[in-house]
């Protein structure tokens, strides 16, 4: 399928694909097995200029948008969903800073993230606060010119290896939804340390850590956007970041199908390649169809988002305001529904396709010597993080009912 990429976009795809084939494939099993962070591949991704494809040129990026991010992530994840995440977790830190950061914060933090010299991470989860972010207990209290942070956050993807963290704290527990604020914290700040490292089912090379804050003092200006707007920052970020998870999922699905096609075409039973059996062909057809449909939605939604994000970013840089405020000023819509749809479709596709790929490969597909089972393990997280697919469906359902209600009101008025 020709998605009419520009010359630059095609180069992003080519470079990410070549990097995946030459640098990721040979080491993916090693990093999955050892659960070590792939610093050497991160260096390759950095040298290939892939870290900043979606960030403005003013901060050392390529000047692309969400579309550039997803096409790069898809190709990296096609070789390894875990290693691709080492770049994607950085984008989940850069996006809230891009959207809600002040001009000074953008300049200070995005530059290192765009080149890949610094890695970023994002953490909102707590042991007792997952989908319900309002139940968070970690506290930030203003003390003169500093915020004092206390509490435990967990399940932080890219924890410990990242230099820059966007973390959410309750600044006013009495205010619930309006009592949460986002902060930018740098590794090495006294009082900020790393707790337990999780042992995971998939994406095992990407470290998932507990973040521990004990009287950690950060400058007042490290507050991201406004006090009490943390949940808004998180939701606005997820609106634009979920396609990144979709791209990771899509890459995983495609990579599993690539491996499965290669295997089923050469594996012979009853004197013929097993791919010549119609039972197999129907499974291949379903996988390929689901992948292409997911890709079509992912690409069209991110392209539409970029038509808002591009001008808003330009306006924000020119006028010295936040991108989020610029989007509002330009009348940009919220992308909650569409980004949730992308994430649900791509991640459900990834789970279904990778499961079917293990099935098509038979016994060897289940073995860890063969790459397909890893794709299945890596796929599962994409249905869970950045909002479970159940939460995504809530968002989609709610948005559709709101749209229908608004339409009903309009019809009533017209009548």
């Amino acid at each position: 399928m020709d998605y009419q990429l520009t010359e630059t976009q095609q180069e992003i795809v080519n470079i990410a694909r070549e990097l995946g084939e030459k640098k990721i494939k040979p080491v993916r099993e090693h990093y999955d097995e050892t659960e070590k962070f792939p610093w050497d591949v991160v260096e390759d991704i950095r040298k290939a200029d892939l870290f900043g494809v979606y960030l403005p040129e003013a901060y050392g990026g390529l000047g692309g948008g969400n579309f550039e991010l997803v096409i790069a992530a898809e190709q990296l994840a096609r070789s390894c969903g875990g290693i691709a995440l080492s770049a994607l977790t950085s984008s989940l830190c850069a996006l809230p800073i891009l959207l809600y950061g002040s001009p000074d914060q953008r300049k200070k933090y995005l530059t290192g993230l765009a080149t890949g010299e610094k890695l970023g991470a994002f953490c909102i989860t707590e042991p007792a606060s997952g989908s319900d972010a309002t139940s968070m207990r970690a506290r930030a209290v203003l003390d003169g010119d500093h915020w004092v942070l206390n509490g435990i956050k967990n399940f932080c993807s890219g924890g410990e290896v990242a230099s820059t963290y966007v973390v959410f704290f309750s600044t006013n527990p009495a205010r619930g939804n309006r009592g949460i604020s986002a902060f930018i914290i740098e590794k090495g700040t006294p009082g900020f340390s790393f707790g337990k490292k999780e042992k995971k089912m998939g994406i095992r090379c990407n470290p998932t850590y507990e973040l521990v804050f004990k009287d950690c003092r950060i400058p007042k200006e490290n507050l991201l956007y406004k006090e009490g707007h943390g949940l808004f920052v998180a939701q606005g970020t997820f609106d634009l970041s979920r396609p990144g998870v979709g791209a990771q999922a899509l890459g995983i699905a495609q990579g599993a199908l690539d491996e499965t096609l290669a295997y089923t075409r050469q594996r012979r039973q009853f004197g013929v390649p097993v791919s010549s059996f119609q039972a197999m062909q129907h499974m291949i057809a379903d996988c390929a169809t689901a992948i292409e449909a997911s890709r079509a939605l992912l690409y069209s939604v991110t392209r539409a988002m970029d038509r808002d994000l591009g001008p808003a970013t330009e306006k924000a840089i020119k006028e010295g305001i936040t991108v989020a405020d610029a989007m509002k000023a330009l009348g940009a819509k919220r992308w909650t529904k569409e980004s949730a749809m992308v994430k649900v479709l791509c991640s459900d596709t990834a789970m279904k396709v990778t499961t079917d790929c293990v099935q098509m490969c038979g016994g060897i597909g289940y073995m860890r010597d063969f790459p397909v089972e890893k794709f299945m393990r890596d796929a599962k997280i994409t249905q869970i993080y950045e909002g479970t697919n159940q939460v995504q469906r809530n968002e989609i359902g709610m948005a559709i009912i709101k749209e229908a209600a608004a339409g009903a009101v309009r019809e009533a008025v017209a009548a």
Partner: protein
Amino acid sequence: MPIKIAVCVKRTPASTSVAIDAAGKVQTKGLPHGINPFDEYAVEEALRLKEKLGGTVTVVSAGEAEAEEVIRAAIALGCDDGVLLSDPAFAGSDGSVTASVLAAALRKAEAKLVLFGKETTDGASGQMPAFTAAWLDWPSVIGVRKVAAASEGELTVERLMEDGVDTLTLSLPAVVGVIKEINEPRLPSLKGKMAAKKAPVTKWTAADLGLDAAKLGAAGSPTEVVGLEPVPARPAGLVIAGATPEEKAKALVEKLKEAKFI
């Protein structure tokens, strides 16, 4: 001190399995092509020398207009500019004549150090570094697995031999043929690729190089390819059956005796 380095690359089919037509010519039209894999090591070494000594790397390729693709691919990795040697008069030139074209271009480009890959994946003659050095009347070493020391005036290299390694020092200008043991080629960067699209690639014809058309092409070549045939397919292997390792070993010994290997 800065040094003017040139690296010679060729555009070759990406696959080594190609058809041979009725006229005995290799059919490569329409096949995916790329930079000759052995040349990637030469490009990498040229870039490393440039990073160490300063200076520039010029990519030189002789071929049809499409060869510009591989010149730009090498520029994307960090080379500075390129020269495409293209002229219908060059068509059909043998190794020696092609080398005479390269030599004329390298002289015109004022290169002081010329790097080549071991051989190409299509012709695979492996003659180009030595022929080119002969035309230039410069010292040359092929089979280089390491550049041990480099300066503006000379180069010390390790040449891999069947029975060991020679360490040789060449005065510049010189020609060096590298082998794949020498380095691990880098991958292109996005910014490199974008810059490569706009990089200058000069085109030189026989006339630009002051070459005599009578000494070029198939007619001007002292050698001629008289026949080509595909490499015969590898015969199927033999699986020795048997219930136990002992039984299998016995059967294997029988087979080896039968074939008069033992």
